[in-house]
């Protein structure tokens, strides 16, 4: 990777804090890791069963090569890649909400139908109520929040196992959606703003501007943090690794923008290109979730409750409050996911979110590296896992695979990811102590 100067420059920068600090007695403490120790530490983590997103990235690479080999003309076409991205959006958003729930070792089986019911509320308000889209979207999110609050209260206060509560909601909410929309009915979504989310693209210049802003902001943030950690003599990653991380993110963001900015219209007379409007929405949700989980007291407490609820309770953390809140966050993100799905399909049906939507989302979170046993997971797992799921769905569609095969393969993938998770956990407990 990019290793020009940082190595020597760093050891020079590192000496003053190490020697002048009053805590030099704590001599065995390592503050700055070199590239080789960083890699060594990573190797140790992998061997001890902490795989993170690695299996998902590996799986994604294999799937892309496989589908490219089978459908060389269409799979990697710009049109299909853009399509794949919009396919991944609702799954990823739903999975992001589930990451919060899974972090506590709980499960929300009703997240899929919660997204459907919330979308139904939005569609009804748009069509029958003639409301503005902001009101309808807000109402959908409040619906999600309310569903989550009730589930959360039943799980956290009444202490019913979450899978029972959410299984009941899985059935009950389908009834509510059926009542709202009517049997066999469909509510079309005509609102321009809602439809634009998954079907329209940003102007090319705006896509590029946002991409560059994102990369610059990320680089500035990473470098600023590294600098500050170095100045205060805190433990930190080596500069080379920070630079490498920035380069990888830049390549992904710029590369994706470049691909999406090309004309992907089948007819040469029109221009179809640009980043779909849903992408910045997912990006914002991702950044907010990552910030909440990694940088706030609330996020720290979510991890603590997921890791050891008794320790969290003794430390004075409101375990009940945390438990309730993750279901509220999960269901609210489910509502947003339902809106995006409604935008993609152009309508809401009574069975929206009832089929494989939920399993796709749970699969996405788990494939991405979030543990079903709680305490381990990140918002980015949902994005990576969502891409894997969408790739399977999309690739099998291109192959013209029968629906039964699609179910079998996706189910198999979920099982595979859960097995990796369970085996990794066993390994962690074997090597952890």
């Amino acid at each position, binding site marked *: 990777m990019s290793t020009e100067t940082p190595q020597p420059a760093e050891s020079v920068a590192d000496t003053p804090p190490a020697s002048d600090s009053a805590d*030099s007695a704590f001599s065995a403490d390592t503050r700055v890791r070199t590239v080789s120790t960083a890699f060594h530490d990573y190797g140790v983590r992998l061997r001890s069963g902490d795989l993170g997103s690695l299996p998902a990235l590996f799986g994604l690479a294999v799937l892309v090569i496989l589908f490219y080999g089978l459908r060389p003309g269409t799979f990697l076409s710009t049109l299909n890649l853009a399509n794949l991205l919009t396919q991944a959006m609702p799954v990823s958003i739903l999975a992001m909400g589930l990451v919060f729930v899974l972090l506590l070792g709980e499960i929300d089986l009703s997240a899929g139908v919660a997204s459907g019911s919330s979308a139904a509320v939005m569609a009804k308000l748009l069509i029958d109520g003639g409301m503005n889209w902001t009101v309808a979207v807000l109402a959908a999110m409040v619906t999600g929040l309310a569903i989550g609050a009730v589930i959360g209260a039943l799980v956290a206060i009444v202490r019913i196992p979450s899978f029972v509560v959410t299984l009941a909601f899985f059935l009950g909410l389908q009834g509510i959606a059926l009542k709202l929309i009517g049997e066999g009915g469909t509510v079309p979504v005509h609102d321009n703003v809602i439809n634009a989310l998954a079907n329209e693209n940003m102007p090319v210049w705006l896509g590029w501007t946002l991409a560059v802003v994102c990369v610059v902001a990320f680089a500035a943030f990473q470098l600023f943090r590294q600098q*500050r950690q170095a100045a205060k003599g805190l433990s930190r990653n080596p500069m080379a690794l920070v630079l490498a991380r920035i380069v990888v993110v830049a390549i992904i963001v710029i590369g994706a923008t470049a691909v999406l900015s090309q004309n992907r219209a089948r007819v040469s007379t029109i221009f179809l290109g640009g980043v779909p409007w849903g992408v910045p929405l997912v990006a914002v949700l991702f950044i907010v979730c990552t910030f909440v989980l990694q940088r706030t007291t609330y996020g*720290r407490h979510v991890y*603590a409750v997921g890791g050891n609820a008794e*320790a969290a309770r*003794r430390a004075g953390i409101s375990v009940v409050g945390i438990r309730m809140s993750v279901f509220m966050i999960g269901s609210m993100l489910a509502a947003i996911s339902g809106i995006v799905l409604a935008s993609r399909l152009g309508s809401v049906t009574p069975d929206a979110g009832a089929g494989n939507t939920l399993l796709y989302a749970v699969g996405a979170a788990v494939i991405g590296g979030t543990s079903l046993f709680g305490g381990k997971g990140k918002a980015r797992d949902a994005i990576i896992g969502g891409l894997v799921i969408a790739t399977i769905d999309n690739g099998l569609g291109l192959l013209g695979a029968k629906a039964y095969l699609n179910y079998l393969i996706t189910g198999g993938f979920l099982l595979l990811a859960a097995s990796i998770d369970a085996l990794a956990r066993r390994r962690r407990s074997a090597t952890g*102590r």
Partner: protein
Amino acid sequence: MSQNETPTLELVGINKSFGAVHVLHDVDLAVHPGQVTALVGDNGAGKSTLIKCIAGIHPVDSGAIMFEGRQVHISSPKDAASHGIEIVYQDLSLADNLDITQNMFLGRERTKGIILDEASMEQAARETLTKLSVRTVKSVRQQVASLSGGQRQTVAIAKAVLWESKVVILDEPTAALGVAQTRQVLDLVRRLAETGHGVILISHNMNDVFEVADRITTLYLGRVAADVARSDVTYSQVVELITTGRSGDLGLAPATAAESI
């Protein structure tokens, strides 16, 4: 030693009953700064109940808890913490998936606005470990899952010290540890005392007790059988005190010891 100063924590005539069962009879206990007081006694002697009274989990029926010479009322674990009494429980209260710094500040995180102040927490964690001359952990950013039992106990103790505690109560800190790890923890217990903390050590292991304790308080069926300096007693005397409540001219009067049974 420092017998003449005011004890940091002093219990006077503590009584506690659960229903008809009289668990603690007029228990007196003094914890001096810079001293390790070992609290020993057989199972059911009342050690845990006594600790829970100090921690504010059980209210006492009668008797006084004096903190730095003033009588205080401890009615909840929060009250205990506000007086600087920290308890390190036998079953460790650490979250495996968080690192050492995160665990030490769990529930009391420092923030800047809404953002966690990682820098100041990491520095404080490092300073605390330095103060205790901990050399066994590699980095304050190490995940607790990767630590050995002794290192975990070390982190749990350091967590108690971080909060400017004056009295640290250790409930069987070496119960589940191997030889080398027990060594680490006992060294740490000694350093706790050297840094001016009053330490109560609960242990069943006489070797540990004789190694680190300044005073040994023996509980026998809810009564203090003896409160003696370590140098004044032998190993076998303490064992006798634990099992029968008396040893030679030490311990409870024969009548009292017999009556308790």
